[in-house]
């Protein structure tokens, strides 16, 4: 499995776990504003989990950009992941 696919898989797992969504839910389409389960606890938990899993540190401005799964994936790509 390529590194990129591995990152994708880990990120999907993080989102699924934190947002506690059902199997089969299209996690890659999830957006913060339209997902009721993406509340303040979920948002902070996502950041903590991503920092821990990928060994990175996010700036406040980067945390703000995490408005969707897709935006988060772009953020990780910019960090070389």
């Amino acid at each position, binding site marked *: 499995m390529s590194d990129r696919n591995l990152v994708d898989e880990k990120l999907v797992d993080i989102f699924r776990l934190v947002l506690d969504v059902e199997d089969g839910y299209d996690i890659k389409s999830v957006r913060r504003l339209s997902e009721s389960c993406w*509340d*303040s606890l*979920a948002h*902070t938990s996502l*950041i*903590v989990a991503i920092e821990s899993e990928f060994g990175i540190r996010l700036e*406040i*401005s980067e*945390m*703000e950009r995490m408005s969707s799964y897709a935006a988060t994936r772009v953020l990780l790509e910019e960090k070389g992941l």
Partner: protein
Amino acid sequence: MYNPYAVGRAIYLRAPNKADADGAWHTWFSDPETTQYLSDRYWPNTIDLQKDFFDSIQHDKSRLVLSILDKETDIHLGVCSLGSISWVHRYADIALIIGEKQFRNGQVAIEAISLLLEIAFLRLNLRNVKGSYIGSNPATEMLMKLFDFDISGRNIGLLNFRGKYVDSINVQLSRDKWLERNGSKVGVRIDI
């Protein structure tokens, strides 16, 4: 923005004013959802009590209370503070309330804590920031984790949470530890 004391991306902090005291501020500390995780807020608050509090902080240098405002709308959405400031030992207690529920999206709290810590360590030159939270509050637990607070102690079963006794968790963040992640801010001028 009016009279900003610290400016973030989506919010800014400023000294509370009379309009804040006359506004929704007092309701936050009566609201059952907002106060359920506050260990010392179990009595209804009133606008008169809030105004008394506002008067009491005007000349009190042991407590820095700041209103949190939304930059776009200038809505007063919460308060944060560095309290019980010891100028000798150089520590303070951190506190935060997002009173307006529509702003409880995680990011506002993150930005407020970030600004408050920068004030504590770079502006007030404190060495330690500490606090405590009720063990049944997962949002604060995660927030403290995000900002690298260490758990410095735990008072077992100390607090009543709606009929159940839960732990009170003490946390602490040193300036040295904060600098590990924020060292690039030291000595840098502010441009708003």
